[in-house]
C-alpha cells in the first residue's frame, strides 16, 4: 500500500523470536509452530499466509497465550511486545494485555459472540474490564465503538441479541469489541472467510479506515493472496510451522524468492490474467508429526537439491526486515 515506504522505519511493536508451539499427542509430537521469527512495527499490517496446518492460527493463539491446554504448549521462544516478553509474565498480568493492548478477531462471528447476552453487553465487557468505566460513560463508548464499525442506529441495536444481526454485521460487532479499548495490535484470524464478497469488501475497507485513524498494527491471518495484497505492508509466508519467506508486499508479489511462494502465487486463478493453466504444486503439505528432514518443502519443490533433503536452510537476509529460508538464495 501507499504508506508502505514509511512503516519500515517505525519502532518495533511485536517481536516474535524462535517461537515453538507443540501438541503432545499419544501418536507423537505435532510441531504446529516450529521456530517462527517475525516482527510487527507500529502501524504496520503484517500478513501470515499459508495453507491449513501451516501454523498461522497457532502462531496467533500463541501471541495471545490462548493455545489449547493441556494438548498444546509453547515450548520455546520469546514474544516481545513493546520489549516485554509476554511468555514470561503471569497469567494475571497477561490479562492486562489480552483484550486491551492486543485484541483478536476470529474467523467465525457465529461462535465468537455469546447468544444469551445483548450485543451492548458484550461490547461493554472489555470497556468495563480494561478501561474501568461504568454506566453512561461506558455506554457512550459502546455507542462510539459501534458507530466506528458503521452499525446503523446503535442506540437500538445495543439492546438486541447476536441472532438479530446479519453475518457481516456480527463480524463488525466483533471488530468493535476488539477495537473498543483502542488496542495497539489487532490479530485478525481469517475474519472474512464466512462473508460474501461485497460484505468482505466493506469489512476490509472498514479495518483500513480504522487503522489509518488510530495507527493500529494488524496481523492478518489468511490463505487469500488477494486480501494480503490489498491489506498488508509485509507478508510472511508459512509452510509446515515455519516462516519460509518474509518480504514487503510489493516485493513478494513481483519477485518472490522462495519456490513455495512462487508456486503459491502461480497456482491461483487471477482475474484478468487469463492463465491458460494453473501452476500445480503436486503432493500434499506434510504431516506435522513427521516433517521431512531438511527443508520441509523439498518433496514438493521443483528446484530441490541434495542439501535441501538433509539440512534446513538458514535465513538469508535480503535487506530491511526481509529474509528467506532457501538454499537457492544462499548461493
Amino acid at each position, binding site marked *: 500500500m501507499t504508506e508502505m515506504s514509511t512503516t519500515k522505519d517505525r519502532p518495533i511493536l511485536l517481536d516474535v523470536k524462535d517461537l515453538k508451539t507443540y501438541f503432545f499427542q499419544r501418536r507423537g509430537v505435532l510441531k504446529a509452530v516450529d521456530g517462527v521469527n517475525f516482527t510487527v512495527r507500529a502501524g504496520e499490517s503484517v500478513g501470515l499466509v499459508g495453507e491449513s496446518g501451516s501454523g498461522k492460527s497457532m502462531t496467533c493463539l500463541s501471541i495471545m497465550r490462548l493455545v489449547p491446554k493441556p494438548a498444546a504448549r509453547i515450548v520455546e521462544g520469546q514474544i516481545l511486545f513493546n520489549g516485554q516478553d509476554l511468555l514470561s509474565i503471569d497469567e494475571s498480568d497477561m490479562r492486562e494485555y489480552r483484550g486491551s493492548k492486543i485484541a483478536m478477531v476470529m474467523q467465525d462471528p457465529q461462535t465468537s459472540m455469546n447468544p444469551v447476552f445483548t450485543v451492548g453487553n458484550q461490547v461493554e465487557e472489555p470497556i468495563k474490564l480494561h478501561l474501568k468505566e461504568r454506566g453512561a460513560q461506558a455506554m457512550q463508548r459502546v455507542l462510539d465503538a459501534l458507530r466506528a464499525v458503521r452499525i446503523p442506529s446503535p442506540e437500538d441495536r445495543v439492546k438486541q441479541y447476536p441472532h438479530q444481526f446479519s453475518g457481516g454485521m456480527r463480524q463488525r460487532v466483533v471488530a468493535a469489541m476488539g477495537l473498543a479499548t483502542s488496542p495497539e495490535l489487532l490479530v485478525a484470524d481469517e475474519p472474512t472467510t464466512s462473508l460474501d464478497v*461485497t460484505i468482505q469488501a466493506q469489512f476490509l475497507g472498514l479495518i483500513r479506515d480504522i487503522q489509518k485513524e488510530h495507527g493500529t498494527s494488524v496481523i492478518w491471518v489468511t490463505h487469500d493472496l488477494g*486480501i494480503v495484497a490489498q491489506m498488508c505492508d509485509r507478508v510472511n509466508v508459512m509452510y509446515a510451522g515455519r516462516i519460509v519467506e518474509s518480504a514487503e508486499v510489493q516485493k513478494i508479489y513481483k519477485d518472490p524468492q522462495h519456490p513455495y511462494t512462487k508456486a503459491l*502465487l502461480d497456482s*491461483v*486463478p487471477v*482475474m484478468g490474467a487469463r492463465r491458460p*493453466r*494453473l501452476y500445480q*504444486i503436486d503432493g500434499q*503439505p506434510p504431516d506435522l508429526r513427521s516433517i521431512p528432514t531438511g527443508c520441509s518443502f523439498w518433496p514438493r519443490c521443483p528446484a530441490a537439491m541434495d542439501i535441501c533433503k538433509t539440512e534446513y536452510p538458514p535465513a538469508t537476509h535480503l535487506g530491511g526486515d526481509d529474509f528467506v529460508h532457501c538454499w537457492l538464495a544462499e548461493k
Partner: protein
Amino acid sequence: MAVSEPLLEVEGLVKHFPGPSNLLQQSSVLVKAVDGVSFTVDEGTTFALVGESGCGKTTVAKNVLLLERPTAGVIKFRGKDINRLNRRDLKEYKHTVQAVFQDPYSSLNPRMQVKDIIGEPLRVHEGMRGRRLQTRVAELLDNVGLNPVTGSFFPHQFSGGQRQRIAIARALALQPKLIVLDEPVSGLDVSIRAQILNLLVDLQEEFGLSYLLISHDLAIVEHMSHRVGVMYVGKMVELSEKEDMYSDAVHPYTKALLASVPRPNPDIAMGLTISGEVASPINPPTGCRFHPRCPIYQDSPECRDVQPEWDQVAPLHWSACHKVKP
C-alpha cells in the same frame, strides 16, 4: 463453441419454498429462492452461475439434478422436459447428468471402500460385476490421478483434495455428458485447488464434458467457464460470454461484484464497494431487487416499482437494468 442445439435449456425457472414456520402454524410467506431464471448450456462448454449467498444458484443446480421440482418453468435436456420424462428416458437422464458437491467430507460414505463408492453407480445402472467392474474402477481412479491400489482404502484415509478426486471419479463412472459442479474447490487449500481445477479442465477436454459450475469465486469462474450468469436474490441480472462479462460488464451489481474482489496484486486497488446487505429472498425488494444497494438508482420510481426486463446489450450479452440500456 456454440452448436445448433444446446445440451441444457433452463427457461423461466421459478422455485418457491414455504417460509420458516413454527409448530402451531404453517408459514404464509414464501421464500422466492429462484424467480425466473433462464440460460442454456452448450455441449462441451462450462456455464457458470455466480452470486452471493442466498442468490439461488444452488437451488437452480438442485432443479437440474431433479432433487427439487420447479414451481414453474421448464428445464430441457436435449430438447426434452426433464420433469416429464418416461421411465426409460429418466434413467438415461440420471446416467447423463452427474454432480460433484462442495464438501468431500460429507459426500462420501465413510463406511464404504473407495472402489465400492466409485463402483456403485456402475453396479446399479449397468449391472457391472467382477473383473469388468474392477478394471473400470481402476481406470476411473487413474483418470482422476489416484493410484488404483487405493481402491481398497476408506475415505478417511484421504486428504480433502484426494476425496474430491474420488467424488469426481464417481461422477465420471457412467460417462456423463453434463456434470453439475457445486463449489467444487471452496473447501480445499490453495495448492490443492489448482490440482482439482486443472483436473476438471483436462477431463472436460478428454471426455467432451459440459459443466454447470456454481461458484461465488469470480476468479475461479473466469478461469473455468465459457459463459457466465450473475444472480442476485433469485434473479439473473446479467448473462454473457465470459470475456464480455469480465471486460464489459454493464449491470451495476456485476460491476460491484467484480470491484469487490481483492486482487492478488498490490498495484490494483479494490474498486468502489457497495453498501448494505444482500436482500432476503423472503420479501425481496420490489422492482429491481438490487435497487436498495444500487449506486446508480437515484430514487428512480421505475427501479423501485417495475421489475427490469432483459435487454440485449451486445451479441450474446443480456442485462436486466432500467438504467443501463443498449
